[in-house]
């Protein structure tokens, strides 16, 4: 399973999200290959899932990956819930 966490520049925000998504998946025992990147790079990358903010989700419409949103990157409850609802393991 390939997962991208995506932000505008691919330097800071997406890396923070990646750390917490890795933590959440690890706790659930789900194995995944996770990368963080910027929006334009993500558009041309192959992935099963993309996790990003509401503000950037629109520009990833049409991507073959399932795109889902996390609003609070520091809320592990929200991240866990988003994973449970969207990722089919």
């Amino acid at each position: 399973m390939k997962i991208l966490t995506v932000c505008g520049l691919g330097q800071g925000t997406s890396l923070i999200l990646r750390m917490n998504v890795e933590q959440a998946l690890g706790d659930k025992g789900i194995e995944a290959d996770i990368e963080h990147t910027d929006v334009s790079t993500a558009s041309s990358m192959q992935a099963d899932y993309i996790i990003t903010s509401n503000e950037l989700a629109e520009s990833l419409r049409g991507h073959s990956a399932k795109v889902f949103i996390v609003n609070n990157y520091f809320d592990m409850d929200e991240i866990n819930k988003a994973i449970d609802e969207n990722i089919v393991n």
Partner: protein
Amino acid sequence: MMNFLEESMVKFGVDADDAESAIEAAGKLLLDEGLVEQTYIDAMKHAYIDNGPYFVLAPQIAIPHARPEDGVKEASVSFVQLKKPVVFGHSANDPVRLVFGLGASTSDEHLTLLKKLTGILNDTNNIATLKTATSYEDIKNILELER
């Protein structure tokens, strides 16, 4: 020593009228410590204008940054607590009270700093402390835990 929320890189009760001046305030703390160039602060503001407020990544918390090649000398994190909430235009997390200026670098230190910051902000008690703090003394304890 890590350039992570040292006393000289933290400011409380800062006045900012809009998102750009809030970003400027966080960037200036990095500039004054010689950790970034002025070009980096300009790039932080341009990133906001071009890509929107996606870096408001939790309620009331913004982490503005730009690219390492925009003028970062050392990986670094500053903190500005705004006196009044400032609207950045984020659909879920507005308005902003806490601004962390991130000097993004390609070094391993960048990752270490982000891990520390995430460690602090994953705890809502720490966020409450950052909102009400009036001096460095008030936040020292939560920083110690992540050192």
